[in-house]
């Protein structure tokens, strides 16, 4: 058995063995602030006061309980039964992002979103989708239509807006509707009606995170003005040039779903895809790659160009001239692999430069990937924004060309690089209206706000991929006096139909007419509504286009069939715009789990650690190790300094985060922070990086390659990172990994199970354990987590938070290491085996390998926490669960100290109904509390909590089976994390049920001599810290990397 001898580390402080870190690593809890020397001494009087108070409290508690009311419905809706959840198929909307979801409601309140398996993303969700249910209960939402600061009625608003529009129309003034991507056929049609009514209407679509480059490139090469849809499941080799398709790219859920499928290996089918990544920031996607090469943003053109040339040589095509000289590791290897997997590969780039994308299209064309991994006939409509038109709009607005501007749920003042120009020009227009649901940076500058519903209150539809429609149905009555934006446009067009009737009618004319399975529209409607989606070939209304020159720069010789491109012209532009090597400091802007800033007021997302940096509540400049060394920067446990970042004319002070894997000479900064008018949670979190975006050739560029200077200021700053919290000490049996080659040769060699020396020779821990084990007669619940398909996306993290009423503690408390998340995604960097010295290891840290490991309560059969609890508040169940009983817990915290996995969380404070934790919005206002899961206790101060394996779901699944008089199956019970996992890395089930997925995954065999009566047959399965023989019920599958080196 070959021992894998890698070094794993969670952060640089661990790698360098920093003394502070070593000291703190031993402590489960940090020093309690205020308990040091300067803690106030308590006097006898204080003691007496406290005594008196406790006496009074005790006697009060003994009094009669207050009278509580039981208020039934006056007229109970037929399908609502208190205590029984209802599920509705609906759709998540945020700009162009669309996910088909299933909404769980209790007593009419939406409390949880899950993916709809019929949707394009096959049931995948993202952290943002999971978190969006809280936005419904945001106290920051507008409750009335507004004129300036004053509340007005809808009638007044409609009358005034209509009269102003009419007078503008009479004068021949230009009206602009500015929105993010609109992929709703019905909204498009409503906008068309609006445009028809007022004639001179221009619809300007833009995306904060634009993919216009991809659209323009496909317009140039295939004549299709859209982003194609990708099918990763058919790809054996994926080469990504700075595309974070698993993280920030549109539709990452579907990518993750497919990625999960092609990264799964088993003994019977030991094949998996190979993934190359060339990028400057260490992205989520890069962290999952088999081969990752750090490049500078200015090299992107050369990377794709050289890749093209390498492949052109094989294919016998003409190379691009002048694109050579960039030294890029693994590029030739990638080319060889791509050529071998011709037709079953994918090259994808994140650049918004059409030239780079045209070369990428040319590569995919050489590889005959169109028609297999890329489908241009079924374009995806997640991003339809047109940078060119948006730029034209901004300059036109500044020149006073527009008389009216209507912002349809768009916030360009914040999230467009020329936001300040829009802000200053807005005062000049005759009429400005925003349909935004909150008073944000843009809507607060508009004369009128006609607030739209939250998507869970509204009817809507969308066409995320051509021919695939998804219906959004309301799961709750509108909470406030808001109105569907579609209805607003209809009202302003003089239509009196409700948006629901309008939408239904559209479906009757479109989708219903396009199908032949039923002739009854009501039946069709109900069936579609039930399923949530419809697939069929339907012509949808075109968005009103003014006939401006809407052509990409490289449209020479295009035709609508087949690939055509003037590659020579593209090559010369690439040669001009990119460099083989550059000594400039370059800035690459990216988005993380918080998204583009539209959901900045969602505390769950703010406190969700970035999958890579593990930082919460902030954005920061990620810098490379070499930069840190050159500037004498150090970072320990979040303690860092700020730096002055100058880009062009913009100057801002940003904290610095030293990021392993960051390409030398580059820096990263997250977009979506620095909101000024997001609300109490999102305001003033980090800095706004949108103004730093460069607009090159009218395309928004997310890379700034020139004119970037960074100067450390020496001011100290603390970034609330969670990574080095809850460290698992210096143990080496946490991560197991191997290369695919090794796995194929001997699957048993992947996991080395620990053995102990005894007088009778070497023995496995289970042979010498003192524990008796448990008899599980009924169920034996467990989790199986495949490290190979876990991408680290953190959807499970939010799902767990929603399901289990987990509080948000705020930045200060995260700094105090008191975050409450029940599941955390541990991110380990690893240095290769060859590294012997620290120097080598530090070099390896320039481009480390990354492993993600979701870590939650392991539900040990021999749980160390159970033995130390003095009050038996944590006990073992006859179903394999480690139970935590809050009402019995007295808060000694012995259990947390004794937990080898560091997964127990202590309620240091009362987080609910506490003004000091007002960022915990889900538990601090009557409105926010509507999101709470009524089946799960909101924990009080002073008790321990941890993952319960969603025991409330287990109990309700069992009950369902009991009422039906049968045994429960996989369909009945699953945990929130397993349900949310887009790549199906987490599998929950009954280890004793022979038909369950987990039973078959783990290849469980009966074993008489084992304490729990079973044996795991799967070669890759292991338990973390197996040598302790705590015997967890959570099993991990060793990570397999598809690398050639053994």
């Amino acid at each position, binding site marked *: 058995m070959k021992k894998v001898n890698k070094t794993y580390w969670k952060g640089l402080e661990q790698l360098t063995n920093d003394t502070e870190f070593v000291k703190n690593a031993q402590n489960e809890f940090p020093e309690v602030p205020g308990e040091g020397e300067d803690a106030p001494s308590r006097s006898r009087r204080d003691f007496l006061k406290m005594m008196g108070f406790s006496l009074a409290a005790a006697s009060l*508690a*003994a009094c009669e*309980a207050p*009278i*509580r*009311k*039981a*208020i*039934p*419905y*006056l*007229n*109970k809706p037929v399908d609502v*039964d*208190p*205590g*029984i959840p209802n599920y509705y198929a609906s759709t998540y909307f945020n700009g162009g992002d669309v996910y088909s979801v299933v909404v769980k409601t209790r007593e009419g309140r939406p409390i949880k979103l899950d993916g709809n398996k019929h949707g394009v993303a096959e049931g995948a969700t993202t952290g943002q989708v999971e978190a969006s249910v809280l936005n419904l209960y945001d106290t920051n939402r507008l409750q009335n239509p507004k004129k300036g600061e004053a509340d007005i009625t809808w009638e007044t608003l409609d009358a005034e807006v209509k009269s102003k529009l009419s007078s503008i129309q009479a004068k021949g003034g230009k009206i602009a509707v500015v929105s993010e991507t609109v992929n709703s056929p019905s909204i498009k049609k409503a906008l068309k009606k609006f445009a028809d009514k007022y004639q001179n209407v221009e619809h300007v679509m833009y995306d904060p995170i634009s993919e216009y480059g991809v659209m323009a490139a496909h317009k140039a090469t295939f004549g299709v003005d859209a982003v194609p849809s990708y099918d990763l499941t058919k790809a054996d080799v994926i080469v990504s040039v700075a595309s974070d398709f698993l993280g920030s790219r549109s539709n990452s859920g579907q990518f993750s779903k497919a990625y999960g499928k092609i990264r799964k290996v088993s003994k019977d089918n030991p094949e998996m895809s190979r993934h190359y990544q060339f990028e400057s920031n260490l992205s989520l996607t890069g962290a999952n790659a088999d081969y990752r090469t750090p490049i500078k943003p200015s090299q992107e053109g050369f990377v794709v160009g050289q890749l093209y040339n390498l492949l052109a040589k094989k294919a016998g095509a003409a190379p691009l001239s002048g694109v050579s000289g960039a030294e890029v590791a693994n590029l030739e290897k990638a080319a060889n692999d791509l050529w071998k997997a011709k037709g079953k590969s994918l090259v994808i780039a994140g650049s918004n430069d059409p030239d780079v994308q045209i070369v990428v299209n040319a590569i995919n064309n050489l590889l005959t990937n169109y028609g297999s991994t890329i489908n241009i006939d079924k374009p995806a409509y997640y991003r339809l924004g047109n940078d060119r038109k948006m730029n034209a709009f901004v300059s036109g607005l500044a020149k006073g060309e527009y008389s009216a501007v209507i912002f349809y749920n768009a916030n360009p003042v914040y999230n467009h690089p020329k936001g300040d120009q829009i802000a200053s020009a807005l005062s000049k227009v005759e009429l400005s209206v925003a349909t935004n649901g909150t008073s944000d940076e843009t809507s607060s500058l508009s004369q009128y706000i006609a607030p739209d519903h939250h998507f869970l209150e509204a009817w809507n539809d969308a066409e995320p991929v051509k021919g695939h429609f998804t219906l959004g149905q309301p799961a709750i009555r509108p909470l406030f006096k808001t109105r569907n934006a579609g209805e607003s446009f209809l009202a302003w067009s003089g239509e009196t139909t409700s948006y629901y009737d309008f939408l239904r009618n559209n479906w009757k004319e479109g989708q219903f007419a396009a199908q032949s399975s039923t002739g009854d529209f009501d039946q069709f409607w109900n069936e579609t509504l039930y399923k949530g989606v419809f697939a069929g070939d339907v012509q949808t209304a075109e968005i009103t286009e003014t006939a401006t020159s809407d052509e990409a720069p490289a449209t020479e010789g295009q035709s609508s069939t087949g690939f055509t491109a003037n590659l020579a012209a593209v090559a010369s532009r690439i040669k001009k715009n990119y460099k083989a090597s550059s000594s400039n400091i370059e800035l690459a802007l990216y988005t993380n789990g918080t998204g583009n800033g539209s959901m900045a007021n969602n505390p769950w997302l703010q406190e969700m650690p970035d999958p890579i940096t593990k930082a919460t509540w902030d954005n920061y400049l990620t810098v490379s190790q070499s930069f840190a060394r050159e500037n004498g920067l150090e970072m320990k446990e979040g303690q860092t300094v700020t730096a002055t970042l100058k880009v062009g004319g913009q100057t801002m002070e940003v904290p610095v985060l030293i990021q392993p894997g960051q390409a030398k000479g580059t820096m990263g900064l997250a977009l979506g922070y620095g909101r000024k008018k997001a609300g109490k949670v999102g305001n003033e979190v980090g800095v706004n990086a949108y103004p730093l975006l460069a607009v090159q050739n009218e395309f928004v560029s997310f890379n700034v390659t020139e004119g970037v200077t960074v100067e450390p200021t020496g001011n100290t700053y603390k970034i609330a990172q969670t990574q080095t919290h809850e460290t698992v000490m210096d143990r080496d049996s946490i991560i197991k990994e191997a290369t695919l080659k090794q796995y194929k040769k001997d699957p048993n060699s992947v996991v080395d199970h620990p053995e102990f020396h005894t007088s009778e020779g070497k023995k496995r821990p289970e042979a010498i354990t003192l524990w008796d084990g448990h008899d599980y*007669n*009924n169920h034996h619940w467990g989790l199986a987590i495949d490290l190979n398909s876990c991408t680290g996306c953190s959807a499970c993290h939010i799902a767990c938070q929603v399901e289990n009423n987990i509080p948000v503690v705020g930045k200060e408390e995260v700094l105090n290491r008191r975050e409450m998340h029940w599941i955390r995604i541990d991110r380990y960097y690893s240095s290769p085996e060859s590294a012997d010295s620290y120097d080598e290891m530090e070099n390896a840290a320039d481009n480390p390998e990354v492993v993600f490991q979701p870590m939650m309560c392991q539900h040990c059969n021999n749980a160390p926490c159970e033995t130390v609890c003095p009050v038996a*508040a944590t*006990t073992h*169940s*006859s*179903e394999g*669960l480690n*139970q*935590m*009983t*809050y*009402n*019995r817990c007295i808060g000694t915290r012995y259990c947390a100290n004794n937990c080898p996995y560091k997964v127990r969380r202590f309620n240091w404070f009362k987080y609910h109904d506490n003004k000091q934790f007002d960022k915990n919005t889900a538990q601090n206002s009557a409105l926010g509390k509507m999101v709470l899961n009524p*089946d*799960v*206790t909101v924990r009080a101060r002073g008790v321990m909590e941890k993952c*319960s394996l969603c*025991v*409330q779901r287990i*109990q309700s699944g*069992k*009950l369902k*089976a*009991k*009422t039906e*008089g*049968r*045994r*429960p199956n996989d369909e009945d019970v699953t945990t929130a994390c397993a349900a949310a996992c887009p790549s199906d890395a987490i599998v929950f089930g009954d280890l004793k049920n022979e038909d369950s997925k987990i039973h078959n995954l783990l290849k469980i065999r009966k074993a008489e001599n084992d304490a729990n009566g079973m044996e795991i047959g799967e070669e890759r399965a292991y338990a973390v810290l197996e040598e302790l023989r705590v015997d967890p019920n959570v099993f991990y599958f060793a990570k397999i990397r598809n690398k050639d080196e053994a």
Partner: protein
Amino acid sequence: MALGCKMRNFLFLICILSGTVAYAQQDSATAAGDAAAGGEQQETAAADDAASGGGEKYPGIPTDQASISAGQELFEGNCKTCHNIHTKLVGPALANVYERVPGEGEESIEWLHNFIYNSQKVIASGDPYAQKLWEEYKPTVMTSFPFEKEQVKDILAYIQQETIKGPATASTETGPGGEVTTDGKQTGISSTYMSVILGVLIFVLVLILVVLILIVNILVKYLKDKEDLDEADREVIEQKFSFKDLATNKVFLAILTAIFIAVVAKTSIDALFTVGIQQGYQPAQPIAFSHALHAGEYEIDCNYCHTGVRKSKNANIPSANICMNCHSVVKTESKQIQEIYKAVEENKPIEWVRIHNLPDLAYFNHEQHVEVGEIECQTCHGPIEEMEVVYQYAPLTMGWCINCHRETAVNADGNDYYNKLVELHNQETDEPMTVEDIGGLECSKCHY
């Protein structure tokens, strides 16, 4: 001779013993009373079986016992609130209904099926009999029940049986509530009986005491009269009961203190245990709804109003629209009913005072207990069908829950969920499988 002294001790002992015996007897007598009540229930059931004898049968209506009991269940769950077999309620009496309606045999059953499925449709079709009914009962509209035809036949089977039986006398009437009523009465009778026995016993004991004291006095007198007494006997005779001696007796004082401390401790511990327990809590409600009338006298199935009790965690306080099902025609003039109308008109839900306040940290699910466990409502809610104003019957403490889980056998019959568990359990022991045996005492079954 220390006879007198012994005699006194004996008297004291008897006093104590008689008390204990009385208690013990009360306990066993209650148990006996329970057993007796159980026996009577069985007899009633047997009588039921015997009653389903001959009589004229209507063609097409099944007569097998399975259909009749299925029909009875359906009838009680759905029809009973508005229909009685022999008397007119909200709707007509249903005895002989199959003979009254138009058509012969299957035809009339079909007619009934249609009418039950959608009465308004039948009325609208111009059917004369339906028209006549409408004239008589309007504006009350019969609720539609989406029954299968077989189910209608089952209900008719039950109605036929009841029709043949004729108007029931109180003695033979049974029902889910009825059984418990009898049970309750039985216990009541036996407890009065017990008090009589207890009274007699105490009387006898007091009598013995008096007799014994008399004997002692006579003996002492007799001894006093005798001259030839030795020192010891004389001492006994001249012994005077002295409180002073008693007050200075260390042993006595120690015992007294110990008893005092024990009593105080017990009382205070008991008192502490009642903190937060609202057993017997009987608040006044905004509307004087009587369970004794609805559940007791009219025997409306609990499930009719408490709609969630078989399918949800919550049993549900009925919404006003459920009240209105009947009270749109029944007792419309009542002041209390007017309150419901007012609530409906003002669109303000009725704010009942919550009686059973289980703490938030405990999870309780009605479906598990009522549907799966088939526990009677009265087990926890007490003789609800006798309550004019509902009170909290059970203490709702954890000890009470746990105790029931320890003692209650799992209702595993015919439920495949439990098959293997029962099998495994029976390999180990002959005792029935209790809730405790399958993990019913574990924390996470109720706390999460």
